[in-house]
């Protein structure tokens, strides 16, 4: 794990009409760690990752990636930097098979003609590297897969592109106990392989099982960043439900719990 963050957001503002979804939010994540992003409904977690992914442009604020200031105006920009997002609804096409979904929007082609064999081979390789072994045929439509298998496909798709940062939005929300364990193991493996992982979850059990640090948002503001080893679940619950914002616009921020 390195000390300089891979991705750093400073002073992010975002509003939808009259609703202020994010105000002056800071966030950072390092390579090789799992950073959990927690908060109650409407805390701004999803909005924040959509800003990182380029789905919503932020109104104000800066993004520093690998020490450089960058702008992200669309999903393609994020992908170019090596940022991949696995959404809660997985964003898979049910009618397409595993290989087709893994390469969706980035198909291997020569003069626009698809190159299926290399795509199929690389898909096998990626799934094997992540030890995703429950999928019988990578040519079966995603519609036939179970929830955990779909999640695995979505995660595998995210890491296949030499990505540096993988953001997982509620990866275990729809899963049973055994499948949840499978996916959490997968999350830990991503960090072991040196990727920066952002995990959004409501489930503090999941968070404490995987994360090294925890960022808490409340009502679109920072509450704090906590070191998992030095924090109890109780403290996080308090921060989520009653935490005070660490900074108020215009006043320099005060770090609450430096990790």
């Amino acid at each position, binding site marked *: 794990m390195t000390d300089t963050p891979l991705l750093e957001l400073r002073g992010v503002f975002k509003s939808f009409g009259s609703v202020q979804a994010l105000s002056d939010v800071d966030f950072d994540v390092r390579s090789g760690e799992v950073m959990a992003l927690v908060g109650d409904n409407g805390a701004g977690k999803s909005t924040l990752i959509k800003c990182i992914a380029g789905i919503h442009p932020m109104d104000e604020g800066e993004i520093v990636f690998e020490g450089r200031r960058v702008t992200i105006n669309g*999903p393609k920009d994020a992908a170019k930097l090596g940022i991949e997002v696995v959404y809660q609804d997985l964003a898979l096409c049910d009618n397409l098979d595993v290989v087709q979904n893994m390469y*969706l929007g980035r*198909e291997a082609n020569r003069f*626009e003609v698809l190159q299926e064999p290399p795509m199929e081979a690389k898909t*096998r390789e990626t799934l*094997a590297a992540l030890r995703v072994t429950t999928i*019988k045929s990578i040519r079966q439509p995603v519609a036939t897969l179970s929830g955990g298998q779909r999640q695995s496909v979505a995660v595998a798709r995210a890491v296949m592109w030499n990505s540096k940062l993988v953001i997982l939005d509620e990866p275990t929300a729809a899963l049973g106990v055994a499948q949840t364990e499978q996916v959490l193991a997968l999350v830990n493996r991503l960090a072991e392989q040196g990727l920066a992982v952002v995990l959004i979850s409501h489930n503090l059990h999941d968070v404490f099982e995987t994360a090294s640090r925890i960022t808490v948002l409340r009502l679109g503001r920072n509450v704090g960043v906590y070191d998992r080893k030095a924090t109890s679940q109780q403290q996080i619950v308090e921060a989520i439900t009653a935490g005070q914002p660490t900074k108020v616009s215009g006043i320099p921020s005060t770090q609450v719990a430096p990790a």
Partner: protein
Amino acid sequence: MTAAASAPEAETVPLEPLQKRIWDNVRTGNLGSGPVIAALGFVVLAFSLWAPNFFTPVNFSNLIGQTVGTCMLAYGVVFVLLIGEIDLSIAFVSGIAGVVVARLQLPTGAHFPGWACIVLALVATTLIGVFQGSVVAKIGVPSFVVTLAGFLIWQGVILQELPGVIVIQDNTINDVYGYYFSDLGGWIIGGIVSAAYVLGTLGSAVSGRLHGIAIRDPIVMAFKVVIIPAIVLVTVWICNKSQGVPFALLLLVAMLLLLTFLAKRTTFGRHVYAVGGNAEAARRAGINVARIRILVFMISGFMSGLGGIVLAARLNSVDLNAGGGTLLIDAISAAVIGGTSLFGGRGEVRNALIGSALIATIANGMNIKGYSTGTIYIVTGAILLLAVTFDTVARRIQVRSGR
């Protein structure tokens, strides 16, 4: 439903037995064109035994004529249905193509050379497709309404621009339908098409082997490699017994191959399926969804134009009925009956050919048997209802098996 925990390692995934794969497909609502091919076989057999003069080379030639124009439109409809949209304007857009070629070839009027008339007609219908597609994709007006407006507008244009009947005297235009190859020419074309199919199928299997990918269903592949050339050559043989292979049939097969290649082997085709399956997922994957939608409506416009030219060439004239009658319903029904889902994302270009062959065969056979047009409509409508019911049930099964 969930796979066994001790599933095999990726490299050595055993090929599932064929029955298992077929069952998987049925279970996930992916029936494909199997039932329709069976129905087509049944209908052909029934009429052959039952309707006099049905199973004759001359009638076979008629049947091709009754299929070609509709099928061209239906090819375009497949693409539109694949992205989960609808195009109701196709029939009158095809009429526009007829009007354009007829007016431009008039010896007393513009008197353009035949090829120029054809090109300009195709450009016109393609632009109509681009326009309608842009309104759908960029502004977000539902395609049903945009193309319903198109239905009225283009019909109006036909009524305005056509002084009754125009006879097409230009041979190039008429040859689009009615040029018949010599017997030898027919065999050569049949041979080339068969060889191309066999080499293409075997070629992709070999290139898969080179990358260490096993051939799925070798039996199915062997079957296809035998049966498709057989169908092609029998078709040539029957055509040669009457006037020969018409150019329109060659065009039909050429477009089938071209559009199938576009749908299955290109990034564009993949994105069409993705947009139909889950437009939001496609958008997040960086696919320009609006561009795909516009291009699909453009294909629909182009194919309508081509179909319109074939239909005009078949009659050697264009009249105020151009694009009217059951053309629209037949073309959309053909795609749907062939197995293309109305909900988007599932279907193949060949569905259009199988579906329009079925519709034309039923109409042709019942006509020979002396049934009224009304009865034919009722039967075709019932089959359409059946096909859509299948699709809806299949889709529900698919949603259920998804978890």
